[in-house]
């Protein structure tokens, strides 16, 4: 049998989360097929066809899938399920939205946010906000899995799989997309950025986040925030890094004025290098930081910019 990976995309661009999910799927059950469900998404299917290890790309190009709403996605994936022994989606807000519906319809448990494939039926996943790691073994039957993409490397893009058109399934019309408010930014996305500069309650206001944004632009970095900063209304919700926000693992994570609540650490502790800058020398984040600087962030940010300028940034 084979596994089916549900592609993450915005109808024009294939999300990197897909390539990482393919890597996990290869370890669960090869060959791997990728489902691209969307509208006017031929370019996405072409990109998916290049992923190494992918044997075939299925494209369902129809209006109900434009926004990947959970109800039509469930019907489509369930209709394809008999041919696969594993179905995997990245643990994005899309994947988390539609995949449990598929599992329930197929009467199998879902294994959420795996971080490691121990063997084809055994997986590691974080529980208690990452304070414990459970190793779970699936029973016989189909495996329905969401993948924490920061834990897997992206599949290479040197393949050339055939693309097959499939028919849309009927849409019940029970849900309808009304609109969206996306944070438009020239900066890289949080989950794909190599460098992230992140601010906490210590930033004191949304206005002050501009300081971080300037620094981020110098570094070609993404801007993140702690839950405290989001709850205080400094920045929108999609900036939140943490167990219930985005889980990130960049090469370099620089935390300004973040104390280091457990739930924030759960979202960034797999970063390669962690830098913490905080004026409270007892801040818990210092216990996990590779480099710690006790300093007032309003002095530290301009100082860092100045040092970077010296280096030609």
């Amino acid at each position, binding site marked *: 049998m084979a596994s089916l990976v549900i592609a993450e995309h915005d109808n024009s661009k294939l999300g990197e989360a897909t390539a990482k999910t393919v890597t996990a799927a290869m370890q669960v059950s090869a060959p791997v097929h990728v489902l691209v469900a969307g509208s006017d998404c031929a370019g996405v299917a072409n990109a998916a066809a290049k992923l190494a290890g992918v044997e075939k790309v299925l494209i369902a190009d129809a209006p109900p899938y434009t926004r990947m709403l959970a109800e039509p996605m469930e019907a489509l994936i369930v209709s394809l399920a008999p041919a696969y022994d594993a179905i995997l989606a990245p643990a994005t*807000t*899309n994947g988390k939205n539609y995949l*449990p519906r598929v599992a329930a319809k197929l009467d199998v*448990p*879902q294994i959420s946010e795996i971080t490691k494939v121990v063997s084809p039926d055994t997986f590691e996943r974080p529980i208690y906000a990452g304070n414990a790691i459970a190793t779970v073994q699936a029973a016989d039957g189909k495996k329905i899995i969401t993948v924490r993409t920061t834990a897997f490397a992206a599949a290479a893009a040197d393949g050339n799989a055939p693309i097959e058109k499939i028919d849309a399934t009927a849409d019940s019309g029970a849900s309808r997309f009304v609109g969206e408010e996306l944070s438009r930014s020239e900066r890289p996305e949080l989950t794909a950025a190599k460098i992230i500069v992140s601010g906490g309650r210590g930033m004191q206001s949304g206005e002050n986040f501009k300081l971080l944004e300037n620094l981020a632009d110098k570094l070609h970095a993404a801007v993140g925030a702690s839950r405290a900063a989001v709850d205080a209304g400094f920045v929108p919700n999609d900036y939140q890094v943490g167990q219930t926000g985005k889980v990130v693992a960049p090469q370099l994570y620089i935390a300004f004025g973040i104390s280091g609540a457990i739930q924030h650490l759960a979202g960034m502790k797999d970063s390669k290098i962690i*830098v913490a800058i905080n004026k409270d020398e007892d801040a818990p984040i210092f216990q996990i930081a590779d*480099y*710690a600087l006790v300093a007032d962030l309003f002095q530290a940010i301009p100082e860092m910019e100045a*040092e970077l300028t010296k280096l030609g940034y």
Partner: protein
Amino acid sequence: MKVIVPVKRVIDFNVKVRVKADGSGVDLANVKMSMNPFDEIAVEEAVRLKEKGKATEVVAVSIGPQQAAETIRTALALGADRGIHVKADGEVEPLAVAKILKGICEAEEPGLVIMGKQAIDDDSNQTGQMLAALLAWPQGTFAHKVEIGDGQAQIEREIDGGLQTVEIKLPAVITTDLRLNEPRYASLPNIMKAKKKNIDQKTPADYGIDITPRLKVLKVTEPAKRQAGAKLKTMAELVGKLREAGAL
């Protein structure tokens, strides 16, 4: 419109979780337990719907051991009208919970189910979506804002890129995200009143559901620890170190 709010008893979010030395799980002995924070937000939203005249009755449901009744009492003190306690010991997986809730929904015929998007113990983020699928209802997950209209609801959802609004037909399942509302504290008179409210006692068998776990937990371990690194004195030193490490 009747609203059902499932609530789960979990380790209090302020408690430091300890993994048992034998790797069999997390130590729950003598640990403070509370209502799952996302479920508190769900109770608050349901009670506000009642206060606005959109809901007629709020029913709090919990599936769990004897002490889960305390979690239902908490919901009753926050404004829920009555409770249903489905007594079950040990781990009940999200799919089994969803099946029991389906049975309750068939008996109670609510117009809406509001529940937390995930429980902070197993972090599965599945049950609401599974329930919606089993009932063939639409869903509004990770809700940031809820507007109940005539036979439909508009849900503003927290998604990776920002916010998305969907319109779903009722009945439906809504799961709550962090910023939907700020739950109130129960007042002493309401805590007293809650003691007189009715809690029905049920078992999974009443709904014909087998709760035997389908996933086998082989072990539970501590995550790999990161060590604290170097404390630096100046920004120049920090940037120098990052340069050396190849991060800049």
